[in-house]
């Protein structure tokens, strides 16, 4: 049993959760709470909400903009490289109701904080009273247990995400320092993942896995198999350095490596690519995809119309990705690491060149 986290809130600033939350810049634009536009024209309705506290997040992940030890005041910190406007929760719920026809998925992200559970519960209830758009939670394992998870399920939360981020225990601890009550535990993360799987059932739990934290391709792909065996989705993210974070000077994963991992994940998930048909070198780098299976060979030729390279995210009511986080893992000046829409012909040409498949297809 994990000890409760300390509640370290200033009594003077009232602009904290549950009365206030932060929303992503893209969400603020979609809800027309902030002016702005995307470089490419596509429909967007995935609203990302983040709990807000004066003392911020008690976790300390070296790659995250919200890390406890990242320099600067919490309210000035960026997250995923962009500003997250602070909004009144009631006003947000009203605004979502006003724009409900274009909403595809809502997600509330917890931060590691002593009040995270109670406030997530309150905010979820408030939103549920106004809109019935599918709603996910991205949870912080150090603050949760079975009872709390069950309460979210009972409220109608239909998908649960866990920001495991690192796919091996070694990488997990390499980039995170402990949270104040000593509850940062690899096993605790997996306990919460397994409890969520038990409560929500198959294909309702997703694990965020970040490429570029120092893991090998083999560790990443082994993690995919482990999750699929348990009917849990891995959602892929490409590491994107957050300025001033401990990993602010790290490079993004090399684009060819990233594309190949996207492709392999897709082949496993949708076409049953077998483990023995993937080859690694002695330092765990992906060096071979065996295409003796005719079906796999065909998929690779057509690249499934670009589907492997679309954003991983929770679905809308039609089963399409509803949470597409445009420009979340890349800048508008860079190639789309994951596409919030179906890649066009010209995008596919670029993707093919990036994949360099002739080097690994055997």
């Amino acid at each position, binding site marked *: 049993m994990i000890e409760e986290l300390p509640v370290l809130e200033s009594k003077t600033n009232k602009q904290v959760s549950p009365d206030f939350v932060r929303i992503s810049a893209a969400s603020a634009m979609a809800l027309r709470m*902030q002016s*702005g536009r995307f470089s490419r024209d596509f429909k967007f309705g995935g609203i990302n909400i983040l709990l807000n506290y004066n003392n911020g997040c008690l976790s300390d992940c070296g790659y995250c903009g919200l890390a406890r030890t990242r320099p600067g005041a919490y309210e000035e910190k960026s997250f995923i*490289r962009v500003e997250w406007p602070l909004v009144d929760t009631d006003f947000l719920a009203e605004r979502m109701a006003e724009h409900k026809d274009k909403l595809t998925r809502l997600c509330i992200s917890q931060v590691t904080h002593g009040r995270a559970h109670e406030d997530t519960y309150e905010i979820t209830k408030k939103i549920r009273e106004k809109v019935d758009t599918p709603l996910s939670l991205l949870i912080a394992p150090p603050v949760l247990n079975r009872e709390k998870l069950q309460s979210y399920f009972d409220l109608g939360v239909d998908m649960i995400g866990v920001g495991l981020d690192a796919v091996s225990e070694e990488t997990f601890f390499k980039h995170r320092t402990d949270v104040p009550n000593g509850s940062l535990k690899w096993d605790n993360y997996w306990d919460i993942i397994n409890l969520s799987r038990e409560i929500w059932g198959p294909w309702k739990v997703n694990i965020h896995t970040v490429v570029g934290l120092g893991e090998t391709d083999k560790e990443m792909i082994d993690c995919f198999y482990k999750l699929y065996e348990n009917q849990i989705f891995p959602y892929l993210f490409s590491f994107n350095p957050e300025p001033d974070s401990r990993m602010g000077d790290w490079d993004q994963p090399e684009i060819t490596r990233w594309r190949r991992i996207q492709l392999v994940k897709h082949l496993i998930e949708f076409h049953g690519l077998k483990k023995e048909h993937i080859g690694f070198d002695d330092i765990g780098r992906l060096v071979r995809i065996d295409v003796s299976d005719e079906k796999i060979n065909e998929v690779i030729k057509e690249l499934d119309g670009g589907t492997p390279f679309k954003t991983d995210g929770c679905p809308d009511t039609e089963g399409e990705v509803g949470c597409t986080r445009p420009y979340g893992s890349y800048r508008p000046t860079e190639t789309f690491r994951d596409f919030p829409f179906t890649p066009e012909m010209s995008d596919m040409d670029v993707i093919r060149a990036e994949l360099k498949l002739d080097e690994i297809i055997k």
Partner: protein
Amino acid sequence: MTIEINKYKLRTDLFYDPENHYWIAINKGVAKIGLSPLVQETSGSFVAIQFNKEKDVFARKESIGSLEAEKHVSHMKAPLSGKVIAKNEAVIENPRLLNTDSYGEGWLVEIELSDEENEMKYLLQDEEEIKIWFENEIKKHEEKGWIAQ
């Protein structure tokens, strides 16, 4: 003098490039250029400015560089032909100035004009023309959902 259209302030002592949404101050053959208040707002928060390092003489409509906001990137096209003689170092250092002080510290470049006589026809200065152009542009940006409610 300044006119206000909706909440946007437009200085009438300046020229406007209706295609690229620049304001342009011309003094002795040199054009100082910045962004219109509408486009600075609907681009979102600017995060980076890149200039073309290959050359400094540009024909009208050629790309001088790029303007990158959080979720959007656009070419910075030359509104008039000429030689770039100054780039605003302050705005390169702090691109947010484009949003916060677009008529002042947030200017972009100065261009020594090479064909002022023939190219001035592409710019607007008449107050009535500016008003009609800007009202139409607000409407377009509204329809696209780029302006906050």
